[in-house]
């Protein structure tokens, strides 16, 4: 199957030709397939946000290409604009971009820019609000009267309302309490299931990416350091620690158990841990 997004030898340099020149991405290649849930992890400043902005044509690569269904998004203006709509990007702390008088109108901003009909816009706004758990009454209030977590959900709905095939979220749970985090992650999951969308999520929580994603991209010092399933990536515990990252706590516990001589396999989520422990107990009972 043809990948929906393909990134080939992509490099990006900020402020090129000035004393402040900075190479933020260095020769990165990978492909994204339909329906995947990809996690992007990396130390602060490793280039995660920069990479995300390449994928919907906000930043133009210094060299290399970004292909959307096989077509270079920079080959003509129309395609670049299409990429903005088909690849939705939710920025870090998106609540600071709200500007309209009502939540409804703010969510409608994206669909309106797409030039959709009034009925279609209305349908999308209500559906997007549903995905993030906003009530019909909340649609009519000012976004500035909402709490931080609710504002975040309005901002995410604003991107979801464009019904992007690829939804990219840059640290969507940063600065939220545990319940707020779980709710947002649930919202993303429900959008993915309803639209069979592709999700890419930047996160600093190893637990979250281990539990939710099918695949992890690890960025380190502007380069793509690893690309594989969470199971594959988390076996390189030491390398990850060297990059300033960590592995899920439960994985650490199990690695330690193995060192102590217990015959367990590597696990990444609490669910797997429970299963593994049950197996041992079962084995012990038989013996």
């Amino acid at each position: 199957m043809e990948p929906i997004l393909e990134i080939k030898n992509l490099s990006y340099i900020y402020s090129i030709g000035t004393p402040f020149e900075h190479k933020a991405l260095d020769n990165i290649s990978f492909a994204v397939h339909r329906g995947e849930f990809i996690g992007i992890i990396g130390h602060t400043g490793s280039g995660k946000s920069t990479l995300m902005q390449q994928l919907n044509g906000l930043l133009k690569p210094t060299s290399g290409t970004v292909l959307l269904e096989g077509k270079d998004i920079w080959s003509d203006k129309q395609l670049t604009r299409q990429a903005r709509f088909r690849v939705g990007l939710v920025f870090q702390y998106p609540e600071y971009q709200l500007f309209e008088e009502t939540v409804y109108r703010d969510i409608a901003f994206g669909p309106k820019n797409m030039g959709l009909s009034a009925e279609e816009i209305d349908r999308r706004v209500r559906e997007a609000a549903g995905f993030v758990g906003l009530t019909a009454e909340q649609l009519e209030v000012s976004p500035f009267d909402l709490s931080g977590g609710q504002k975040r959900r309005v901002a995410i709905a604003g991107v979801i309302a464009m019904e992007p095939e690829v939804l990219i979220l840059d640290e969507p749970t940063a600065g939220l309490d545990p319940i707020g985090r779980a709710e947002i992650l649930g919202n993303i999951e429900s959008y993915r299931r309803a639209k069979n969308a592709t999700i890419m999520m930047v996160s600093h929580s190893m637990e979250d990416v281990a539990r939710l994603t099918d695949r992890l991209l690890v960025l380190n010092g502007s380069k793509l350091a690893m690309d594989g399933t969470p199971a594959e990536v988390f076996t390189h515990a030491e390398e990850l620690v060297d990059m300033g990252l960590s592995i899920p706590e439960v994985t650490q516990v199990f690695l330690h158990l193995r060192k102590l001589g217990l015959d367990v396999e590597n696990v990444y989520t609490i669910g797997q841990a429970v299963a593994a422990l049950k197996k041992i107990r079962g084995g012990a009972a038989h013996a």
Partner: protein
Amino acid sequence: MLKDITLGQYFPGHSVIHRLDPRTKLIMLVVYIVALFLAKTWVSYALMLAFLVWVIQISTIPPKAIVRGMKPLVMILLFTGILNLFFSQDGRVLVHFWIITVTTGGVSRAAMMMARILMLITGSFLLTYTTSPIALTDGLESLMGPLKKLKVPVHELAMMMCIALRFIPTLIEETDKIMSAQKARGADFENGSLMDRAKALIPILVPLFISAFRRADELATAMECRCYQGGEGRTKMKQLHYHRNDFFAFGIGGAVVLAVVVLGQFGL
């Protein structure tokens, strides 16, 4: 990218010029500008230019940076040049076309005005490139100190300027971020009629103002928490002192003005 604007940006360094007292540099800039306006002939312009080039050289500021800073001012420069071209009708006629007459006097006057503006701007760039905004406001506050007697709130004004300067890069960065976020939702700032484009600014300006007010609020709270109180009785951690180099600078500056005046006397 908005960030690449260098107008009035500080270039950290350790040159002699960087280390001069900010008051010295401010006074020297004023002296330099006065000298520029006293200079009436090409000989005195050449002297001023030589002085400027020498200062740029010892300041270790890359000339490229100065040229880049000029870019936004090209229009003003051209406009002045063209306007002055027709101001003077002395000398030999070079071009005569319909009601337009260009003479050698006009050309020389236009060239001189453009040189004056270029040198004036370069001089001010040298000040802002070699002096950190904090040092600059400190210097201004100290120079304007006597105005306190006239009940001018000098310290408060300096503090306001200092805060404003401090937040310019932050606000530019913030604008960049908000613009990207709205572009990701399909906002279009480049196409459409003037009206459309003005309207397209709303999604940027509203969040920008909200965040500026929020920052101002936070800063005020943080200052109050540290019992900030301006003006009377407040001392500085870094006191300004004139050093040997400052007196040298005053000497050289004085000599340049004197030379320009003397040259003027001889009609050069």
